[in-house]
């Protein structure tokens, strides 16, 4: 791989300054995605800025029952946190559904948010890919697309965001906190991720030179009864074909509140707002749920290879919501 420098700044300010000075630098957290991509020649940084010693590894309560999760918190620690497990079961379940024990021990919250797509062509430098090399073309459109997007894709890219944790965070309406030379910023997770459009090389709206410092998860009554469901090609250590993060509040058989986000279907964690809107005030019944999810999927544009994701979303969402409704809270 290309020779690169390595720096481990002592505080956040120094890290942000260094990052601003060196456009060829990349932030190194657990390295479980970045280093793989460097080996493949997809990432070729001149400098790695190690953010593992910046003290961003705490989980703290926030006003209103929310929590602030440091960007450096390891996936394993997040999933094992008793507060998270109690108040936000879907988040702990989503993290545990991802990767493997060894990887989760290394992987950080910040790195997890920014993991790159698993589209096969993105990782293969011998083939065109607009996300890796803007303007080179999309090999997936007429190639292998079984794992790729059915919602919100563009002519230039049908890659999916592959992660699990962020799908749960999307359902929870989390906010991403980051630092640039101009100071601290906080952005809704919905505005953090983006559709590929004509710029699939950009996964997120995070400005260059930014270091993610934390994720804010608001306290919501609905999140107590929540779950994460992942359909995949093998029982562990596989990215989702389709995943569902759901939270439900029911009173007398009627939906009072619902949060729904889908993974494996789009360039971003897909917050199913249309379905949510359709469901509120309706009874928790198969027909109503299917109507809601069909509304969400009305603009799905699958390829022949990934057309199965549409019925898969339907079944997974329906089953997941019915199961949540049947639970007596937790």
């Amino acid at each position, binding site marked *: *791989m290309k020779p690169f420098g390595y720096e481990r700044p002592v505080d956040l300010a120094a890290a942000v300054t260094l990052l601003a000075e060196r456009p060829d630098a990349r932030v190194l957290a657990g390295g479980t995605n970045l280093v793989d991509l460097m080996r493949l020649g997809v990432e070729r940084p001149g400098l790695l800025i190690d953010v593992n010693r910046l003290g961003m590894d705490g989980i703290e309560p926030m006003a209103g029952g929310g929590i602030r999760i440091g960007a450096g918190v390891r996936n394993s620690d997040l999933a094992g946190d008793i507060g998270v497990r109690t108040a936000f079961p879907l988040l702990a379940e989503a993290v545990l559904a991802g990767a493997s024990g060894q990887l989760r021990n290394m992987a950080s919250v910040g790195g997890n948010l920014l993991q790159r797509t*698993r589209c096969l062509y993105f990782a293969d430098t011998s083939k065109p890919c607009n996300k890796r090399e803007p303007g080179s073309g999309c090999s997936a459109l007429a*190639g292998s697309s079984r794992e790729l997007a059915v919602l919100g894709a563009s002519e230039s890219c049908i890659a999916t965001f592959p992660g699990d944790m962020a799908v749960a965070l999307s359902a929870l309406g989390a906010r991403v906190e980051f630092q640039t030379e101009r100071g601290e910023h906080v952005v809704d997770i919905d505005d953090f991720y983006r559709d590929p459009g004509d710029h699939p090389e950009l996964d997120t709206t995070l400005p260059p030179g930014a270091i993610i410092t934390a994720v804010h998860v608001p306290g919501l009554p609905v999140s107590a009864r929540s779950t994460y469901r992942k359909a995949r090609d*093998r*029982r562990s250590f596989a990215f989702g*074909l389709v995943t569902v993060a759901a939270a439900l509040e029911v009173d007398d058989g009627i939906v009072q509140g619902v949060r729904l986000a889908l993974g494996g279907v789009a360039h971003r964690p897909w917050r199913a707002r249309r379905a949510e809107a359709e469901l509120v005030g309706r009874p928790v019944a198969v027909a109503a749920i299917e109507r809601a999810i069909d509304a969400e999927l009305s603009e799905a544009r699958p390829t022949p290879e990934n057309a*199965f994701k549409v019925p*898969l979303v339907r079944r*997974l969402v329906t089953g997941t919501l019915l199961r949540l409704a049947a639970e007596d809270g937790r």
Partner: protein
Amino acid sequence: MSVLGRPLARLEGREKVTGSARYAFESSPPGVLYAWIVQSTIANGTIREIDSGEALGMPGVRFVMTWQNALALNDAGDAELLVLQSRQISYRGQVVALVLAETLEQAREAAAQVSVTYDSEPADVSLSTTHPRLYAPAYTNAMFATDSVVGDVEAALGAAPVTIDATYSTPAAFNNPMEPHATVAEWHGDDLDLLDATQGTNWARETISAVFGLPPESVRIRSQHVGGGFGSKGPTRPNAVLAAMAARLVGRPVKIAYTRQMMFGLSGYRSPTISHIRLAAEADGRLTAVSHEAFGQVSPIQEFVEQTAVPTRHMYAAPNRLTTHRVVALNLPTPSYMRGPGETPGLYALESGMDELAAALGIDPVELRILNEPAIDPESGEAFSSRNLVGCLRRGAERFGWSARDPRPAVRRDGRWLVGTGVAASIYPADVVPSTARITAYPNGRFELAVNATDIGTGARTVVMQIAADSLGVEASCIDVRIGDTALPAAAPAGASWGTASWGWAIMKAGAALLEALQTTPRIPDSGLSVLSDTAEEVAAMTKMARFAFGAQFVEARVDLESGEVTVPRMLGVFAAGRILNPRTARAQFVGGMTMGLSMALHEDAVVDANAADYANRDFASYHIAAHADVPDIDVEWLDEEDGNITPTGGKGVGEIGMVGTAAAVANAVWHATGIRVRDLPIHPDKLIEQLPSPY
């Protein structure tokens, strides 16, 4: 109790789990250079130009080898090894250059800067049963007849009250041993020394000496520890030739290892297969016709014909039989040996067909197989040395609780899962090839066994020690074992499930001869008393018989109605594989084989990208192999089988029999659970989801 049959732990187990066992790539002779392969990015055409100027100017880079400056090589019968001999490109991923540098990372980075331009031609990568370029090869792998026709299959199909006509397919399957293919090459004058990840160093030496035009004595190859092979390290691979060639040209030792991605293309794999199965039966279940027409691919440069229909020739009694093989040369990497070549995809097809037939007849699938048990080998007319398939089926049915099974599909619901069970039968040849072995007795009471066996992780080192101890009537702890070195007495490669039988026979012969020699030797000299054996004559003198191991696999499958995900909570394999020489290592082979069969049934899927003319998924994140969470409670049992018509070891080989029937048993269980017959592996959720009934 004899030391044979004892569940001894692997001799090198501790070294392996503590990381002190040294594999080929872990040796670094002084002055070693690291090699990195540059692979073609077209699938058909010619190299126009290679510009290595930039790479050569990079730090640490010592040499870039291309077709223009490589050594001229001899054809040893495998065109895969004729690396860097011409401009011609026949598949994507072929070697076009090799970069040599002082460090691995320097070589890797420089390899990315070697610029290659091509004149590209259209590539053909699509296997089908109607491909216009399909042809009948002269013979299949292992020299089996391409076609075999007995009686009149068409007439029997026309006349039978019950018939099955179905086509089954399997994707390309990549062996993927844990240890990648790797070689360290060093020349001493005109003598070549290789540390190579290979299943057999004698075979490797034959190949390497032919390729380089060297006398075999001047080539030494060692493989002390090999991290799996599954057939892919049987034949010598380009890594060994590249390392030896580069070391010659630069005058320094060279080491090379494939990356995981390179293994999908430069190490062989199982051809995708398509099997057209037709069965005809009387209403009472007796087969009147069995037809298996198999299709596969070869590469444009080298023919390796998966013998997919060959197991069908020996399985069931039917007066009319037809088995054929057709292949087409496609611009994809060269197929080669993978665990159970022929049997694995062939039995998936045949044993799925038998399950369909059982359902059509309304006969229990275990009973249907027993009904069609042949008295003699249907293909050769020879007697079986022993055939205990019926015993395996009956014992398995009892242990699995088969008798309570309701034959109807899609009627067992447990929450959101449909549940079913399936069975399939297995067969694998019990072959033997000549080997030599030497045992030396020392005055201190110790013995040294020297046999060029290879331990590819199976426990071979331990089992050959047990055989030697048994033949001498001493404790295993009295034996020092030397294997994995061409300096030792020549022996069979570890493959085709014949290793233990082949080495074992030579060891037993040496042991017996040494005991005799000791009787007449009053005092063992300090240098030891040695006996060298050779079983060439004995192997040649074996009577012609049908020698096979058999087995029956039973599987329970659960299908999630919400997602189409399949899980397998339990599997049972019952095997008749002769005498089991070490229950611990044999069990590991059976369980490992069944795990690989499960992986084939549910997970492994090599996706052909027609545009890029390539296998699209070439790493472990995208080419899924069963993970621990997928592997259920695997129960294994074997019958006590005494077979006096095989080698004196009494063992039939256990490396492949565990795998070959498993995929069919899984697919049959999925059908029993859901009523959906998946005839194209793997059984992924997308092949079920739309046909499954509503879960709510």
